[in-house]
């Protein structure tokens, strides 16, 4: 009974929301489009800058990982950043995953292994919301694919905080003003600070530098196949061009017989 009431109300809610979305103009305040940046991974020949990817991974681990997961990544995937098997094992072992049941039927915790998916910062969405003033930090694996102009947007978001909201703009205590977040009021405190991390390679850790590195890293988590895809694309395109030339001369030869 209870469940059917629940389904029914979800259904009504869905139908209502859909009708509203369909009939009325979307009321969400718009944010300006993010300025276009130059990225190493842009374009037909673009590749991820490996050093930037590694630095971005460091910022993710030290800053973002306490709130945001990378649920679709496995620790073993880190080999693409240039880490050795031992380094990956050591990194994974900092986290705990539940396993089991063991021979006594008990569930137990063990250190994570390279084969495991990244351990999530919160047990579930409720816990995440409770820890973040009611807002759930979204998973970041696909973030750059899940927003329009993903990479530019992410960079603009991370560097787009203002210390104070413009005159007359109401923010609650758990909200911050961001130029590029739709509606401007975001429930994430500015996560990046100058020298908030200390880069192993000595790169000065300005907010912009950290944001660039993170964006490179998260573009890789979103599209780990990108470099392989593009280089296969080069071969395929060359083959097709060759095919077109052959097809053209074949057609000319055949049709010449007709006249």
């Amino acid at each position, binding site marked *: 009974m209870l469940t059917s009431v629940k389904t029914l109300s*979800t259904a009504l809610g869905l139908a209502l929301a859909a009708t509203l*979305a369909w009939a009325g103009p*979307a009321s969400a305040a718009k944010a300006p489009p993010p300025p276009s940046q130059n990225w190493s991974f842009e374009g037909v020949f673009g590749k991820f800058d490996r050093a930037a990817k590694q630095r971005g991974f460091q910022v993710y681990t030290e800053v973002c990982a306490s709130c945001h997961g990378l649920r679709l990544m496995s620790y073993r995937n880190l080999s693409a950043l240039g880490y050795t098997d031992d380094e990956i094992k050591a990194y994974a072992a900092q986290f705990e995953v539940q396993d089991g049941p063991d021979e006594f039927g008990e569930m137990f915790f063990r250190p994570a292994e390279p084969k495991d998916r990244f351990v999530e910062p919160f047990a579930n969405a409720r816990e995440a919301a409770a820890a973040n003033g009611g807002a759930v930090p979204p998973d970041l694996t696909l973030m750059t694919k899940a927003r329009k102009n993903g990479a530019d947007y992410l960079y603009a978001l991370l560097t787009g905080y203002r210390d104070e909201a413009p005159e007359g703009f109401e923010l609650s205590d758990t909200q911050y003003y961001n130029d590029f977040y739709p509606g401007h009021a975001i429930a994430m405190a500015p996560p990046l600070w100058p020298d908030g991390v200390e880069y192993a390679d000595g790169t000065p850790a300005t907010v912009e530098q950290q944001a660039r590195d993170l964006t490179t890293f998260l573009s890789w988590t979103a599209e780990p196949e990108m470099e392989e895809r593009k280089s296969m694309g080069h071969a395929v395109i060359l083959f097709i061009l060759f095919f077109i030339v052959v097809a053209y001369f074949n057609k000319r030869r055949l*049709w010449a017989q007709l006249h």
Partner: protein
Amino acid sequence: MSSTSPDPEFTGVVRWIDRRLPIFTMMHKEYKAFPVPKNLNYFWSFGALASITLIVMIATGIILAMQYQPNTALAFDSVERIMRDVNYGWLIRYIHMNGASMFFIVVYIHIFRGLYYGSYKEPRELLWILGVIILVLMMGAAFMGYVLPWGQMSLWGATVITNLFSAFPLVGEDLVTLLWGGFSVDNPTLNRFFALHYLLPFVILGVVVLHVAALHIPGSNNPTGIEPKGPQDTVNFHPFMTSKDMIGIGFYLLLFAALVFFAPNFLGHPDNYIPANPQVTPPHIVPEWYFLPYYAILRSFTDDWWVFLVVFSWWGVDAKLAGVLAMFGSLVVLALVPWLDTSRVKSARYRPIYKWAVALFVINFLILGWVGGKEAEEPYVTIAQLSTIYYFLHFLVFMPVIGWIERPKPLPSSISQSVLSPAE
């Protein structure tokens, strides 16, 4: 040289089989010696391109289905697993995803070709109607396919579109419950959509076979619209038309590969990389690009639009139902084109007024697609409404009237003559 069809001589096993089941004779007749007008241009390659796309979709789809999980809890992650962990899964998935777009690009051009050269006219009316049926089935297949990855647009697109059926009087609500298999777009919906998404392409394949069979009775139309008068006007399908099609296939593959390898998500919507969430409505729900012209027609019907008030409201049809009827109507009028066009001349090449009407129709269709992707606010609503009127005017008024008033240019006496001294 001209087309000839000497009966093929088979030997050995082939002969043994052919005597009992004449598939080799059939292939020879329909795909080798089959005579096609010798003046066909590259627009005549788009049928072959559409067939190839269908085969590509079925092949990649079956591979995807081996890894895909039609369950709301697993669907999104199973697609990501294909992208990340299955060998070349990203390739298969991106081919399938962009293949749907290629399919519509190719089929829309194929249809405009038919409209321009009068390919729907006697004796090709059934061929044309079968084509429109394929378009409708493709829309069904693509719509349900888009639901499968279970992202935000999958869920909300499906919710908006299935809700449309509730507009029908009496049966509407029950129909929607039946589509959903429950009281909202949920697991049962995903299950049945997967089953139907697997089925529909094979239905399409069947209709394509009928479409080709209906084509092979009168044979292909051609840019002059004059039927071949004898073997001097035709060439054998193979190797002449096939050698030409190969060039078309080359350029088609070039575009397809550019999308798959360098811009795989260019035609998609970012929201579909957010897992479906019934609690969060995306700010702007839009269907895939190939549905946008129809979506624009659907949304044109607002409560205060005079067309709605004049044509629909007085017989008890509300704006939502009117939009749905107009959307389906836009496909019905397309199917009725053989009877709406009153001209005796097929090809727009010899039709000085209709030629421009088709060009404007295509431009208008593109405008519809453009406004279909905009939010429902001014000036887009007005543009969509004007374009919707123009869409129906083209079919219901311009086509018959132009046929009556236009003075066609003199037709060449045969295809061969037109090749020697072209009209323009």
